[in-house]
């Protein structure tokens, strides 16, 4: 009953702010998800095959369902979704296959106003319904990307750090590898170099296992030009770790980051970020450089809401400006959304 009371109250508050409560299709074609996420998400899908060999899955996530609904039915303009329904994922521990997901999304808008709107809506609605004071943690993952761009690193390492920012454990492993300064294996490299001269004589457009000779040679040359031994991996790793430890009130964040720039002689290009201009109703807003790293598709602003007296996560969300296109939208459609951590709310 507590569950129904909370969900109805939250959805009503969302509706009052112009969000449309929607129900989504239960089944989606697995290809749509596998094509964008690869094998990593495939393991979690509850899938089945029809008589024609086509693979379908129970919807694994309602943000994805909202995006697919927009692509199919709305197509253009700003649309505000609210939903409370079940998502289904294969689990490997004691977790349930069925997850209750309550959330809201603004699809089709890229401005600061929609960022503020989503955070304020979720935070204020929670406050009204559960009657506890909350703390908001905010971050923009592009500040991390800007940090990586300002560091002296080979381009392939920059890409690697950005791509795996959302995978905590593997990211840690990458930082350790960065410290150890071991990248190329000399003897193998010398052997490859011999092969390189042989390959230079081959036709450049010929393909070997899906890759053109030209492509292979170019990448090999690039690796020679950008040896890892030229960088101070330990220092770079320390800067990254220090950055991820930045945690301060949002109103002080610009100054803290400026101090960090001066200390490490880097330029984070802070003027391009509007996170410092968010007009939040909740004054307990913190900047935390380490949050928003659990969802691969976030592209900018990310937030997490906690019960103030305990570190209990109540909601989280973020901006996902590239997701729509990878799910099949013909043009780029910016979007932001957030979901209530419903199981934690029921614990209160």
């Amino acid at each position, binding site marked *: 009953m507590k569950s129904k009371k909370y969900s109805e109250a939250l959805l009503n508050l969302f509706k009052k702010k112009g969000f449309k409560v929607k129900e989504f299709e239960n089944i989606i074609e697995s290809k749509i998800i*596998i*094509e964008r*996420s*690869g*094998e*990593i998400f495939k*393991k979690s899908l509850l899938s089945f095959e029809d008589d024609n060999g086509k693979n379908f899955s129970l919807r694994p996530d309602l943000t994805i369902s909202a995006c697919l609904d927009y692509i199919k039915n709305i197509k253009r303009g700003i649309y505000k979704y609210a939903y409370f329904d079940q998502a289904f994922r294969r689990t*490997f521990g004691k977790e349930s296959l069925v997850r209750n997901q309550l959330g809201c999304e603004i699809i089709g808008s890229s401005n600061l106003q929609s960022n503020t709107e989503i955070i304020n809506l979720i935070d204020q609605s929670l406050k009204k319904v559960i009657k506890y004071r909350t703390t908001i943690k905010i971050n923009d993952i592009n500040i991390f990307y800007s940090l990586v761009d300002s560091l002296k690193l080979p381009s*392939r390492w920059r*890409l*690697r750090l950005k*791509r*795996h920012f959302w*995978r905590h454990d*593997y990211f840690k*492993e*990458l930082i350790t590898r960065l410290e150890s300064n071991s990248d*190329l*294996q000399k003897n*193998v*490299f010398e052997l*490859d170099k011999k*092969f*390189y001269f042989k*390959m230079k004589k081959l036709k450049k457009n010929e393909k*070997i*296992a*899906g*890759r053109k*000779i030209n*492509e*292979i*040679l170019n*990448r*090999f040359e690039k*690796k020679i030009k950008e040896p890892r031994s030229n960088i101070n991996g330990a220092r770079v790793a320390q800067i990254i770790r220090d950055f991820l430890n930045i945690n301060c009130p949002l109103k002080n964040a610009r100054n803290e980051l400026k101090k960090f720039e001066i200390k490490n002689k880097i330029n984070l290009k802070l003027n391009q970020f509007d996170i410092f201009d968010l007009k939040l109703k909740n004054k307990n807003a913190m900047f935390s450089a380490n949050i928003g790293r659990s969802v691969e598709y976030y592209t900018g602003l990310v937030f997490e809401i906690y019960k103030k007296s305990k570190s209990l996560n109540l909601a989280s969300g973020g901006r996902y400006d590239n997701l729509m296109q990878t799910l099949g939208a013909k043009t780029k459609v910016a979007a932001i959304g957030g979901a209530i951590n419903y199981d934690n709310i029921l614990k209160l």
Partner: protein
Amino acid sequence: MSKLIKIGLPSKGRLREDSLKIFKKNKLSIKDTKRNYLSEIKNFSINEVVFSHAREIIERLADNSLDVGISGFDLLKESLPGIQKNIQVFSRLNFGFANLIVAVPNAWIDVQTIADLEEISFEFKDKNSGKLRVATKYPNLTNDFLLSKGLTQYKIVNSLGSTEIYPFTNQSEIVTDIASSGATLKANNLRILKDGNILKSSACILVSKKSLKDKTKRKIIASLLKKLN
């Protein structure tokens, strides 16, 4: 409770021969039936020897239709967690050695490590040519390994045999496969990545955990394992 112990042995090839040898060496005489898939150890407590596919031995141990068996460690690790949890590895044996590895075409000289592969996988994605395809007979072990090493943008192509030729017949770009000496890979213009060792495997003696819960069977199994050790 039944005193009958069911023993699963590989039905084909070197694994069958070497398994029979280990019984013989330990003075357990199995009637070699050549064509019949059922036999027994003549000088041991009531038993039945079933010759099966090595993969099937794992499944039958998990559902307890076999009590003891010999199969590959790679096959056990490839099976689903729900199957593995019902099987105990008694000992690794001194035969059936094989490594599960990641191999790329020799001509991919710019790819030395899985980290390189990870970059290549994004190139495949960005060029809209789809995902990097990995041919394998071991999809579960391959997925666990590649994901732990940071590779996410790839697609598994299930292979039943001749996996080594997949990259050159446009069925996949790279492979993961069993290699013992590496000669087959070399003959097929493939090379193992520096950090591409997924699993070191050998034959092993496996026991169904459910059988161990039965007091009578546990005693008989213990005596059999003692003789084999």
